[in-house]
Each structure stands twice: as C-alpha cells, then as structure tokens.
C-alpha cells in the first residue's frame, strides 16, 4: 500500500502538476489585453473573415476553391490546426499548416508560385482554418515519421546562437516569468498562432515570431517555412499538448 502511494506521488502527480504549471501567452497578458482578445470583434477577426471569403473563392489555373475539395471548413478543418505540423507524403518532409496551405494552392489550384509566406491571403486562410480549432486541445500528430524532426527541434531549442550567444531554453525554460526590460518572458507554448501582434500591427505566423527571437539574439534567422522552424514548431507543440488552441489571439 505504502509502495503504491509512493509510486503515485513520484510518477503520477508530477505529470498532473506539469500540466497545471504551464502558462500560455494569454495567461501572462494583463487584463486589458485579455479583454481585447476576448472581444468577438478583436482585430484578428478581419483576417478570419477574409479567410472565410477566400475559402469559397475559385483560384489558380484550375479555378478551384478550397471548398470544392474540402466542403465546409467548419466540418473538415475542425481540429486540423490542433495537430499540425504534419507529414507530407509527396515530399517526405514535415510541413506546418501554412506550408500545407501553400502546397494545396500549388498542387490543386496551381496558383502562381512561389508566393511569400507572409502573403495576406494565405495568412487569412491560415487564420480561418486555425479558427476552426478554437478551444480544442493541442494534439500533436503521432506519426513516427515526424520523430526525427521533433528531436531536431528539441536540440535547436537548447542551442546557443547569435552574437548574444543565447538558446531558446535559456530564456523560455530557465527564465520564464522573468522580465527582459518590460517584457515578461513566456514559457514558449505556441497556443496562439497566427496571432495579431500589436508590435507588428498585423497578424503573423509562428515562423515570423521565431525569426524575431533569433534576430533579437543577433543570429541569422532560419528562413520562413524552413525545416528548422518546422522542427522547432513540432517540438514546441509536443510540449504544449493538451493546452487550448486560441484562435485568434492578441499579443503585445
């Protein structure tokens, strides 16, 4: 009996405590910013509405719309953002949701390629698709073919880089909750991407945020959509498993 209690305390409770200790960027915001996010007409809503329109709009040389293949996004896209990044069979690589939208556009709509990953229409589609996972728990794709990229992301997270010689982990694990000047350092749970960032005055994806961090430590940022950034997202999403997808969030 006693052994059973020890087992419970030693192995099960820490697991529960771990999930309770995790804080999202939303948790770290002040009440005014939380209220702005909770307002149904928060600034990010415009991108969701744009995305909803684009979903049914014919595009590319095939003049197909997303809806022609996928039907109603509210049904077909529910939970998709909660499990991305995923594995792309044709290329044999991990892709993030923005990359998947780009692949869909080039393969099925045959839109002009390449298009910038920060293309407003593509971000609007990302916003709309992500919106269909609002409130759902992050459930990382367990495809074993993603494991090498996820492990690479974990290694990158602990790699010092840049003139400031800092790793992600040194701030976002070791010093989360501390203040870098006026900014509270978050725990790096990607629950809210794309997000409307006041600093950007627009919405942006996780790779833009990660590139911003890398530039902050005066490193050469990984290219948007690069295997390194997808690997980092895979690792971050696995740490954030069970946390709720925010769609769409506001961040300072």
């Amino acid at each position, binding site marked *: 009996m006693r052994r059973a209690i020890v087992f419970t305390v030693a192995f099960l409770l820490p697991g529960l405590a771990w999930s309770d200790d995790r804080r999202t960027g939303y948790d770290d915001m002040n009440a005014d910013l939380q209220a702005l996010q909770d307002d149904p007409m928060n600034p990010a809503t415009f991108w969701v509405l744009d995305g909803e329109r684009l979903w049914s709009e014919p595009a590319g040389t095939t003049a197909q719309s997303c809806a022609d293949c996928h039907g109603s996004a509210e049904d077909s896209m529910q939970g998709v953002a909660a499990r991305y990044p995923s594995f792309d069979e044709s290329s044999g690589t991990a892709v993030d949701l923005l990359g998947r939208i780009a692949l869909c556009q080039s393969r099925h709509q045959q839109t002009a390629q390449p298009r910038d990953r920060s293309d407003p229409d593509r971000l609007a589609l990302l916003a709309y698709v992500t919106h269909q996972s609002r409130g759902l728990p992050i459930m990382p794709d367990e495809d074993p073919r993603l494991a090498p990229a996820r492990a690479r992301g974990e290694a990158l997270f602990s790699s010092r880089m840049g003139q400031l010689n800092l790793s992600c982990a040194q701030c976002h694990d070791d010093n989360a909750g501390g203040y*870098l000047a006026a900014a509270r350092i978050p725990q790096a749970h990607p629950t809210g991407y794309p997000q409307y960032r006041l600093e950007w005055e627009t919405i942006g994806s996780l790779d833009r945020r990660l590139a911003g961090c890398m530039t902050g430590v005066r490193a050469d940022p990984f290219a948007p959509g690069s295997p390194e950034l997808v690997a980092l997202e895979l690792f971050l999403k696995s740490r954030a498993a069970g946390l709720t997808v925010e769609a769409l969030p506001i961040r300072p």
Partner: protein
Amino acid sequence: MDSRSDSGAGPSGPTGPQTACAGPWWRARFILSGGGALAAVCLLVAAPLNAQGLPDPLTTTPGDPVRGEAIVTDPQHGLCTLCHEGPFPQVPFAGNLGPDLTGVGARRAVPELRQQIVDSRIGNPDTIMPPYYTTDGRERVGARWQGATMLRAQEVEDVVAYLASLTGDMP
C-alpha cells in the same frame, strides 16, 4: 564553433581564461610551498584564481565612468538594462534576469568585473550573460554582427570603470 561566422576576423580580444599559475599570487605560493607541490597546488587554486578575473586593462586609456554609464543605461548599446536593474532611475524598464547592479563595485573587484564583461562563461559556463569582448564559440551569428564583439575594448574599460564606481547601498 561556426567557421562561417567567427573565423578570427574582427576586434577579437583576450579570450582565454587567465591561467591559474601565471599570476604573482601563484608565484608567491609556489615559492612558499616548494616545487614538489606544483601540480597539486595548481589544481587547488585553479578555480579561485580564474574567478579573480582579468587584472590587465584592455587599453592604455583609463576607463571613463561617465561614458560607461551612458553605455550601460542605453538599452540599444550596452543592452545591460534588458536584464539588470541598478541605481539608474533614468532607465524606465529594467529587466530582472541578472543580479541588481546596485553596489556591484563593492561586491566585485575590477579584474572580476572585466572578466565578467569580456566573457562571463569563464566563471559560469551556463551563464545567460552574453560575451561582450570575444567572438569565441559563437554560432550562427547574423551577417551584421559576424566577427564583431558586442563592445569595443575602450567601451569595456568604460563600463568597468562605471560599475566599479557603484559602491553605494546594496540592493
């Protein structure tokens, strides 16, 4: 090491740790203890002597504490206040990731301050404090900063002079 970023170009400063058995303190100890104990004493004193830092100034011009204060309190220049609070009320938003600099001049000798700024990894390999006057061991440095140290030698001396002057009340 990233050969594509920091291949020895630029104003690289003194970068290695001071060897434990090079300074006058060791020589006195060596004479007292006799040559037979050389290896053992070297091992014993290596850590504390490393912690004593860099006694020699990086430049011949003495550090200017006024210029040093300007560097420390400009978050775009020294970056110090991103992580350190201190006796500089003119800085509106100082971070708290590193120790408060109030009284640091009373807590730390000048050679220690110099070592901490030049390369704080010498004292603590896991430090989050950036190395300000070495390009050693950096990875994936952005093009704008490749081969460049965070501060120039005279700027380091200015900052050291300012920090050494902070002997007021402990935080």
